[in-house]
């Protein structure tokens, strides 16, 4: 073990427990989880994640008492080949500890939430055995994410990067044998595969960037790379441009940017806590973290920075338009996540790293809150549907935890658990909801807080972070500023639409009418997240003497002067957000949607809305341009080249035919039959005939033996005499 420069105080020796704490929880659940109750399993997993949070907090404290000095804590040797020296080293500085706190903090809350959520989810899907598995995966994710954010080299970061990708795959495909409506289908596993494959494309870019880095900069270790970069940037600037742009491909894959964002909406097939933790709050921000971590590289090449910013801003606007036309409550949030990730990527692309990280943190709070509240609403709908499907004989259940318990007990009675749904009911479809405000008041208020934070209404967290990004972009690139402003307007609009559709109006489905509030294990973590969504802006207030996050990250990224609040920018964005919510009220709130009524935007917008509704046909486009030709080529290769040409012609006709001819004509007919066979037959025949002759001599008559003896004697004697 080694400390970077001088002996430092603090809790740096705890760094390995960032990874080992969740791994310990994972192992405990792996070994004992089958016998333990759900509460026990959930508690162990949450404690493991909580331990990682405590370690993160202690590490952050240690960094602060050492004035932000980066500490590299080497745990083990890994690869030492030639000039390549890779160790498993934990890098503890203000940037990594920030990420650790977000990951483990939000992660722990989501673990707790998941105890309640998965309890019901596994029962609605009739497979209680999977409860344990879910928490094993969740802990594995925390461990992998910790490796990602604490890595001291691009390769160690990549290990975590792949680890979280694996967990994402496992958790999207958690209900792998059904679709999101629990019908038997491969839809969920296809979504998991899609996420994995699209991420491979991104990882390909990341790997190329890594190879270039090692070839031209001679190392993977952050400090060494950043030290070598300026010289290379002067002699061969294209190298740094190539590295940063290939890295952008990786970022686009993991952080769901154009053109690789298509996996994230499908990833909503996973259980809602997964959507919140992995596909909103933490994993997808890894790309933003990567760009921030590589800030010294990006700063060297402004043209690459501009491309990153444009990709981010373009994604922000593009995804926001799609979100307007979605009906699934989680799909709206998924596109919203892509859009907000676009904000972050645009920010870090412009060099506004603090603003990007700030938005990353606040977004983790309020988007996790929104997803989890949406999960709570979906559960409420499912409870209502369940209640209907099993008749009303139980009487009207009371609200809260108790009622959900009773409903479950109902499902345990008798062997009627495999009841097929009478109709295909989508509890996540906003067109089925409506009026949940009355039946689920806690979820409603939490959702309102999350929405206001996301829409950027003063003084919620989203206002401060989004405003900082807009302010930075207005100072650097006007076009990006306008893209982001329109995206922010649409953000407020689609969130307003969602609120009116889900919580206001009258229930559009019987299940919504019977929806029930979620228990405390679900709502309490949400309240904490709601608190953070309200107060998160305090991390980096744009006033003289504040800018706390800016100072804190300045230890790692270099001190930057915090921008003061620009009332014009803030005023425009707030006004636009309020306007958007007002418009959404006019369209969706004033005349609430009725059952089976088409979206009121459909008529005025016409084909534009059809485009939004169908995600601008991007998936179809990818199918037409890449996947179908690829399928055709593989079909051709498999059928024509491999099967018909290679197998049928080369193997069967040429090789097998030649072999048959050879063996039949040359070997069988001539060598074998006429050579070996003939000799063997002759040998047998000869032996038989000789023995037939000799057998006659052996007749048993003493006289003939005596005659033979005498003849022998005569012969020998004759020879001896006559020789």
């Amino acid at each position, binding site marked *: 073990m080694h400390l970077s420069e001088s002996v430092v105080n603090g809790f740096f020796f705890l760094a390995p427990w960032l990874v080992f704490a969740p791994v310990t929880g994972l192992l405990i659940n792996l070994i004992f989880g089958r016998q333990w109750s759900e509460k026990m399993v959930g508690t162990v997993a949450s404690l493991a994640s909580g331990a990682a949070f405590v370690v993160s907090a202690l590490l952050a404290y240690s960094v602060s008492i050492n004035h932000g000095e980066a500490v590299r804590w080497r745990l083990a040797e890994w690869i030492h080949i030639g000039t390549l020296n890779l160790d498993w080293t934990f890098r503890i500085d203000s940037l990594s500890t920030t990420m650790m706190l977000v990951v483990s903090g939000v992660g722990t809350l989501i673990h707790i939430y998941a105890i309640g959520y998965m309890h019901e989810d596994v029962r609605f899907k009739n497979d209680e055995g999977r409860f344990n598995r879910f928490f094993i995966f969740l802990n594995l994710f925390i461990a992998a994410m910790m490796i990602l954010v604490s890595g001291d080299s691009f390769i160690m970061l990549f290990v975590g990067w792949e680890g979280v990708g694996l967990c994402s795959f496992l958790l999207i495909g958690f209900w792998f044998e059904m679709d999101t409506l629990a019908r038997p289908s491969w839809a969920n596993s296809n979504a998991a595969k899609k996420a994995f494959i699209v991420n491979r494309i991104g990882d390909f870019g990341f790997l190329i960037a890594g190879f270039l880095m090692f070839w031209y900069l001679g190392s993977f270790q952050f400090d060494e790379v950043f030290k070598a970069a300026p010289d290379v940037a002067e002699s061969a600037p294209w190298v740094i441009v190539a590295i940063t742009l290939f890295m952008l491909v990786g970022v686009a894959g993991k952080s769901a940017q154009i053109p690789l964002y298509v996996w994230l909406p499908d990833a909503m097939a996973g259980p809602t806590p997964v959507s919140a933790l992995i596909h909103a709050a933490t994993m997808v921000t890894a790309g933003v973290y990567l760009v921030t971590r590589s800030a010294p590289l990006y700063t060297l090449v402004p043209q690459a920075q501009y491309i990153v910013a444009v990709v981010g801003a373009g994604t922000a606007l593009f995804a926001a338009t799609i979100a307007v036309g979605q009906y699934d409550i989680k799909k709206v949030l998924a596109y919203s996540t892509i859009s907000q990730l676009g904000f972050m990527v645009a920010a870090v692309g412009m060099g506004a790293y603090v603003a990007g990280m700030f938005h990353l943190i606040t977004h983790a709070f309020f988007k996790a809150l929104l997803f989890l509240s949406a999960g709570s609403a979906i559960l409420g709908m499912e409870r209502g549907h369940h209640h209907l499907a099993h008749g009303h004989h139980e009487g009207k259940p009371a609200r809260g935890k108790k009622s959900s318990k009773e409903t479950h007990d109902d499902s345990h009675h008798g062997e009627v658990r495999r009841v097929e749904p009478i109709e295909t009911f989508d509890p996540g479809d906003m067109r089925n909801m409506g009026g949940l405000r009355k039946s689920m008041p806690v979820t409603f208020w939490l959702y309102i807080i999350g929405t206001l934070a996301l829409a950027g209404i003063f003084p919620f967290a989203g206002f401060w972070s989004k405003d900082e990004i807009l302010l930075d972009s207005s100072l650097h690139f006007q076009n990006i500023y306008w893209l982001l402003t329109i995206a922010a307007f649409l953000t407020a609009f689609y969130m307003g639409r969602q609120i009116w559709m889900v919580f206001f109006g009258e229930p559009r489905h019987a299940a919504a009418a019977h929806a029930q509030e979620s228990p405390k294990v679900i709502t309490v973590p949400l309240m904490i997240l709601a608190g953070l969504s309200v107060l998160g802006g305090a991390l980096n207030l744009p006033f003289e003497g504040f800018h706390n996050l800016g100072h804190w990250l300045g230890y790692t990224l270099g001190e930057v002067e915090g921008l003061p609040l620009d009332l014009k920018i803030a005023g425009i964005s707030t006004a636009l957000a309020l306007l958007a919510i007002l418009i959404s009220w006019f369209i969706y709130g004033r005349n609430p949607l009725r059952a089976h009524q088409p979206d009121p935007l459909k008529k005025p917008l016409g084909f534009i809305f059809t485009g939004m509704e169908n995600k601008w046909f991007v998936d179809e486009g990818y199918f037409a341009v890449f996947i179908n030709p690829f399928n055709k080529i593989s079909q051709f290769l498999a059928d024509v080249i491999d099967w018909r040409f290679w197998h049928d012609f080369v193997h069967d006709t040429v090789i097998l035919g030649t072999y048959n001819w050879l063996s039949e004509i040359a070997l069988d007919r001539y060598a074998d039959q006429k050579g070996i066979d003939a000799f063997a037959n002759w040998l047998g025949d000869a032996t038989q005939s000789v023995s037939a002759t000799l057998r006659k001599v052996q*007749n*048993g*008559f003493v*006289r003939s033996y*005596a005659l033979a003896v*005498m003849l022998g004697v005569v012969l020998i004697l004759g020879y001896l005499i006559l020789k």
Partner: protein
Amino acid sequence: MVPVDYYIVLSAILFTLGALGVLIRRNPLIIFMSIELMLNAGNLAFVAFGRSYEIAGQQPFFTGQIFVFFVIAVAAAEVAVGLALIVEIFKTKKNINIDEMNSLKG
């Protein structure tokens, strides 16, 4: 003095008679007698040669005569064993035809 050639010719005639008897006759008693004839043909040759060497050599030389005693002794033993066997075979087969005795199984 009768030359040694005469004895040898006589011995050869006796031996041939004995051999023919062994080959042709089927009665084992006769065969035994033929064997005796052959042995004695040999004895005659021994004695004749022994005598001729005694005359040619300076010192007395009884090797041939002594060998004949051995042959007579062995022939006696052989006949004793052979007759015993024939008696045993007769007991089981009620027959002593030599052509019947072509299997090793008693």
